[in-house]
């Protein structure tokens, strides 16, 4: 192969691989990311049951019920809307009634939310800022919200 042909082979190989990567990224963005909602916006958004989202808000005071085994029920609220959440597993150390929480999971057909991950406060993927921003926009002040330093 001449120098030109070699360079052409190299460049076309690179372009091919990078295009593959671009397609993968686009596909993954359409499939594998979760949007963040607070209960008030969720009612307006009219999402289909089964949609994967992140739900953020406050754990409604008095709403936490431990059912048989490891099942937990609680309500996430932003004072405008409220969504009943079911979760099967261990809640994070800093999960408290009246404090911020982010749950990731799917919407159920009856308007509830089945969480498979619950994050609170110092957990690494938790984003208290998101909740705080949204809630502040809706006029809710966060009592006892200690940001992690």
């Amino acid at each position, binding site marked *: 192969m001449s120098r030109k042909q070699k360079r052409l082979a190299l460049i076309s190989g690179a372009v091919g691989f990078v295009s593959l990567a671009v397609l*993968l990224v686009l596909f993954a963005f359409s499939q594998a990311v*979760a949007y*963040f909602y607070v209960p008030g916006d969720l009612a307006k958004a009219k999402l289909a049951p089964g949609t994967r989202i992140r739900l953020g808000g406050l754990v409604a005071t008095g709403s936490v019920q431990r059912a048989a085994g490891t099942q937990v029920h609680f309500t996430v609220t932003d004072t405008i809307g409220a969504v009943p959440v079911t979760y099967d597993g261990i809640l994070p*150390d800093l999960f408290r009634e009246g404090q911020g929480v982010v749950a990731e999971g799917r919407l159920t057909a009856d308007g509830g939310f089945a969480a498979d991950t619950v994050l609170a406060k110092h957990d690494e993927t938790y984003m208290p800022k998101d909740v705080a921003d949204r809630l502040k926009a809706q006029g809710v002040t966060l009592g006892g919200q200690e940001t992690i330093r």
Partner: protein
Amino acid sequence: MIVELGHYALVLALATALLQCLLPLVGVLTSDPALMRTGTNAAYAGFGLTLLAFCALATAYVTSDFSVVNVFENSHSQIPVIYRFSGVWGNHEGSMLLWLLILSFFSALVAFFGSHLPERLKALVLSVQAALAAAFALFVLATSNPFLRLDPAPGEGRDLNPVLQDVGLAIHPPLLYLGYVGFSVCFSFAVAALIDGRIDAAWARWVRPWALMAWSFLTVGIAMGSYWAYYELGWGGWWFWDPVENASFMPWLAGTALLHSALVMEKREALKIWTVLLAILTFSLSLLGTFLVRSGVLTSVHAFATDPRRGVFILAILVIVIGGALSLFALRAGTLKAGGLFAPISREGALVLNNLILTTATATVLIGTLYPLVLETLTGAKISVGPPFFNLTFGLLMMPLLFVVPFGPMLAWKRGDLAGAAERLLTSALLALLVGAVVLYGAWGGPILAPFIIALGVFLMLGALAEPAFRAGFGKLGFMLALRRLRGLPRSTFGTAFAHFGLGVTLIGIVCATAYQTEAIVEMRPGQTIEAGGYSLTFDGLRPAAGPNYSEERGHFSLRKGGVDAGEVWSSKRVYTARRMPTTEAGIRTFGFSQLYVSLGDSKEDGAVVVRIWWKPWVLCIWLGALLMFAGGAVSLSDRRLRIGVPARSRQRPIQAVEAGE
């Protein structure tokens, strides 16, 4: 008094950095050797002064001097002394000071080991290093000063975040920074060479040891952070694709690419422009990581404080440094001549493929990390890009690279023999397939891809061993002769073998721990028993206990295997007194390379406790592989041809040697 001394030392360090930046540069412009040489002593002085500042802050921490705001906010007199010390970098201000300390440490290392460098190049490298140091010293003094006092002094501190009260904090950040910041040397070499306008194979030989050192430290730094998160956070995960983790992973990927392309440049004088660009990009990604973590753009356990001034300041540094370097690159890249020719199937070709895949993979991680930030800024929509995204993009893109790795070292420079390489790897491939088949049979009904990836991991391990074995002539020559030849092989051959072997080990650990882990979340009462990974765990109940600055409820579990006693596991729920902050301390018991991981949840009124139990087969391989990669880097560094401060031949006549090479 000591604190003020530290403060003063830091101001002097800034002044020294400015001198170190300007004097050698003027020396180069006016061809004044005396001015050029000032960089060396300035670098030593800068390091000494920064070290003094750091020691002053450390003293304030160890003696619990709460009149210092930074100590008051992040320490407590009841914390054990080692955590009081490591608490120095357990907060934003102190951690930036550590960053600066390591930066000036690397400047001093360049000054010390750079005696063989051409004087112009050395002066320019030290000047660029000093520019970085000055920018960050100014950042610390202007926006994140750890030496500010409180009056009156409070009696007690606000405590260090309990999650950070761990040996992990003592080890992980310094190692990570040694890696992160170590790439600054490669960056400075790149910028210096661009200013000087001379880039040849010798440049790559000078840069490679630094890249290798930074890469090795970054490897263990990331691995340590991963293991720390694994045992400390109590959710059994070891990698979350958290933006902050990605911030350290991107320089690692780019640095890995840099190591390999510098090899091509050193041996064949090809890929010059690309290697210089990679050196700039790698450190740019380090800076981007620092910006993401330190600016408060991301909120996570790593983002200690959010102050918009800091974000803007680091962003300004980022834009000037990266923008300046890339502009210089754009200006000078055209004048660089392309180097040696090579066929697509050759060692160079394989290394180009390595670079193509690694940089594309880095780009996908970068996009996944930044896209949510960009989207939120533009549209206000908030999304989370998590493991599903990265597994699909990064995971899939890396697979071909893993398959190609064993072939690379088997191919000759310039023109390789693919059939010959395949023939030499045949035994490894067959053995790997055999292992894969056994796993497939043994774990029938499990994830279908896992056995194939395990086979790939075994292929990587055996392929890594096959290369030195082939070069020594095992199988062709007599065993004793081959053994003698093996001992005569250059160290870097073993370095490569170690690192590639480690990659295979990590891959196997990842696949086994992901595909074959078992998880049970159950409610247990004292006396109840549950099965996990072939062991039966009996919960014996909770007992209260107390540590120096916390109280805890410890759950005790007895282990049995096949009716025989197999030890015990403790797992506890702690409450740290100063902040009333609860944490979970996972109980971990190691069996060979596998681990049993027990985490406690809430206890109920009737004495039952929710318990989460994982069996994590081969999980230790993940970090063991990283240690092997580190060992590979260390072995390569000890190679006579690569050692920093050598090449011995050109030592007496450094300048002439370079001129001869032109």
